[in-house]
């Protein structure tokens, strides 16, 4: 076997340019497959971690009546958490949010919005809640609020602008106040952006007359906190909250598999062609092997291994230029020329690919296996050769 590999290497390296073309093609496929898969993996990971960072934390508790997509439920989906929890919220260990409905009037048309009051002390979510704290904004009588960039843009508002919001408190009393947009934040997660106005939780609680009441809570870690909650709140696991993204990425991945397939076929085409020629040109050599006492299957194995060595050489070459390339991609990300957030999916303009050992080994095995298969197929012909004839260099 050792000899077989040694001979294979010698043969291949001796063939010069055509070997290197094959190796280049194969290594190309190798790197490209890992790269594309890495991007998909990175996207999946990134979209999920952004959602975790910006919106859901490591799971959430929702008021039992709360349905984020049905604004009619918001009037009845708030309750007071226990005192222990209230303290923890004050300390910022949880992100507590009160959700309410409001109306704004851009261009004199009524536009319903979602008012989200969040504890400014929270350290769970990336939403820059510190901009909302009252001390900073005490100059103005208007309520300090924040919006995502998409929302601010669609309302044609910029930082410093004031606008009127009308809402009804818990008793249905109409109220309307000026709000001042103190911060427009850019977020890759549209579900904390579109149609939403963020303000200090206690401000919204005062506006609504709902002292200490909240609608939902994002957790900082996977710790189980059942004891902290009354039965008015229901646990929503991270997996549940991430399922939409999961589906989306899976769907996209399927579309990419054609790339791998074609890349592989291309590489195999080159190797197949080379192998066919090898077998054709090296009949005398084959005859000699057999005359020396090699069995036919051993010769077939020799040729197969020779093909397989392509995979090894390709891996080495892939390592040579693929490693720096993939590392560079891993560090700097792949820039999407579009704003994905606008499409309504979590993501950002840079995708940082992820390369796991499993991915690299898997791809290597896939390529090695197909290479061996493609090398074996033409080599099979050898078994049918007549040794005497082949020694003379004739194809029987």
């Amino acid at each position, binding site marked *: 076997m050792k000899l077989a590999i040694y001979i294979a290497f010698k043969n291949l390296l001796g063939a010069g340019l055509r070997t290197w073309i094959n190796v280049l093609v194969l290594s190309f496929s190798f790197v490209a497959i890992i790269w594309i898969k890495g991007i998909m993996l990175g996207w999946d990971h990134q979209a999920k971690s952004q959602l975790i960072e910006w919106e859901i934390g490591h799971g959430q508790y929702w008021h039992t009546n709360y349905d984020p*997509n049905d604004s009619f439920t918001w009037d009845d989906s708030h309750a007071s958490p226990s005192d222990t929890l209230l303290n923890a919220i004050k300390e910022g260990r949880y992100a507590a949010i009160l959700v309410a409905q409001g109306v704004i009037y851009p261009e004199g048309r009524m536009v319903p919005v979602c008012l989200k009051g969040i504890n400014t002390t929270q350290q769970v979510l990336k939403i820059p809640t510190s901009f909302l704290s009252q001390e900073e904004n005490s100059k103005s009588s208007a309520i300090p609020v924040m919006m995502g960039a998409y929302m601010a843009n*669609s309302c044609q508002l910029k930082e410093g602008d004031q606008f009127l919001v009308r809402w009804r408190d818990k008793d249905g009393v109409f109220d309307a106040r000026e709000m001042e947009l103190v911060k427009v934040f850019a977020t890759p997660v549209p579900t904390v952006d579109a149609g939403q106005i963020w303000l200090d939780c206690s401000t919204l609680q005062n506006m609504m007359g709902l002292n200490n009441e909240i609608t939902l809570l994002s957790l900082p870690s996977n710790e189980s906190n059942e004891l902290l909650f009354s039965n008015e709140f229901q646990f929503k696991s991270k997996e549940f909250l991430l399922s939409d993204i999961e589906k989306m990425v899976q769907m996209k991945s*399927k579309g990419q598999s054609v790339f791998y397939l074609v890349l592989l076929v291309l590489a195999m085409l080159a190797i197949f*062609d080379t192998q*066919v020629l090898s077998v054709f*040109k090296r009949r*005398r050599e084959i005859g000699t092997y057999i005359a020396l006492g090699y069995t036919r299957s051993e010769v077939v194995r020799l040729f197969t291994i020779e093909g397989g060595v392509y995979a090894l050489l390709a891996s080495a070459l892939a390592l040579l230029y693929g490693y720096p390339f993939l590392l560079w991609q891993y560090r700097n990300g792949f820039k999407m020329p579009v704003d994905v957030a606008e*499409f309504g999916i979590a993501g950002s303009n840079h995708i940082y690919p992820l390369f796991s050992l499993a991915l690299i080994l898997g791809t290597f095995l896939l390529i090695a296996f197909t290479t061996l298969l493609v090398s074996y197929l033409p080599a099979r012909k050898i078994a049918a050769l007549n040794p005497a004839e082949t020694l003379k260099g004739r194809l029987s």
Partner: protein
Amino acid sequence: MIRFILRGLLRDRSRSTIPLLVVAVGVSLSVFMHAYVTGIMGDMVRQSAHYSEGHVKVLTRPYAEMAHLNPIDLSILNASELEEVLVHQYPEMDWVHRINFSALVDVPDSLGETKEQGPAFVMGLDLLSDKSTEIKRLHLTEALVRGRLPQHAGEVLLSEQFAKKLSVEVGEEFTLIAATVYGNMAYVNFTMSGTIHHGSPAFDRGSMLIDLSDARDFLAMEQGSAQILGFFADGFYNDDTALEMKNSFNTLEHGEAEDEYAPIMLCLADNPTMALYLGLGSQMGMWISLVFLLTMSLVLWNAGLLGGLRRYQEFGIRLAIGEEKSHVYRSLLWESLAVGTIGSAVGTAIGLFFAYLLQHYGLNIEAFSENASQSVMMPGIIRARITPVDFYIGFVPGLVSTLIGAGLAGIGVYRRETARLMNEL
């Protein structure tokens, strides 16, 4: 000479079959890949075009400014007249009417009292007329989860998730409540003939498809339409043509000069998101195709090289019987040119054939997954798109690389001694 070369190729299988096969397979892969990449890159744009943007759309200016609020009171009123104008001026386009609005669904119990209520996003589009192209455009048949498509006035499709939430069964009636163009509330009963899966969380949550004339009656719009969408006959967006059409339409006077509600035409690329996606599509498509073409070129180069190496023995004999080295070399190049041309032509034809199949029928990738339901937004169907480029793109690697390969292999003819070549046997 040409005949001689061709005859040689035809008679000597080893000279023709394998190189031809390799070139043809390689070229067909390149062509197919290019069409495939173009197809999937246009996918997101296509979904938005079909759902809301059209390739071009005609609407009133005030509506365009507030389109995200679906202000039906700012609709086009004389939509039928306008359609005639559009059909006359741009007969190659497929023009369809759309009316989107928000409404409330009220589901009664057996006594007619309200059982469930929920807000709905309603899309009015032609579902019933014989000439309707919408069912095919939105893959409604494939996206159907329960029941059937509407066949009569008053029948509607709900998103499956929404129907479940409201606990409406196929064949059951409910009341739709929404503001008409006059602003007053209309209450009309509809029957759910079936449910569909959109594949977009927002649409699956609470949306409804209703026939255009039902929507018009309901909203008191008579011949009105919120928007008239235009689609290119081949189903693919063409920015140049769309822009030209938009400019020609918008320079014409429509209605009275002072009419604030005179129609304007917008093209898909006027939507910034769409413009970015179009840009992304062509850019990514270009890069991916380039990588493939490069790889392909290498493979074919190698094939050309191999094709030359195969024949060193023959060259030896030819030189031995007194043929000039340059002549042998030239004939090798001519032969590879022939192989490249024929292989590229055959490969392009094969590639186009498969690309056409994928363009026409689409590949249902969802069928391989566990939940085999399809949807409107992401139909789980991958389609290729054949563009004019596909007719010649394969010739680049097919011809050039084969020639270079043969050219390099042929150098050996010069380098080696005749006897050595003979010995390659």
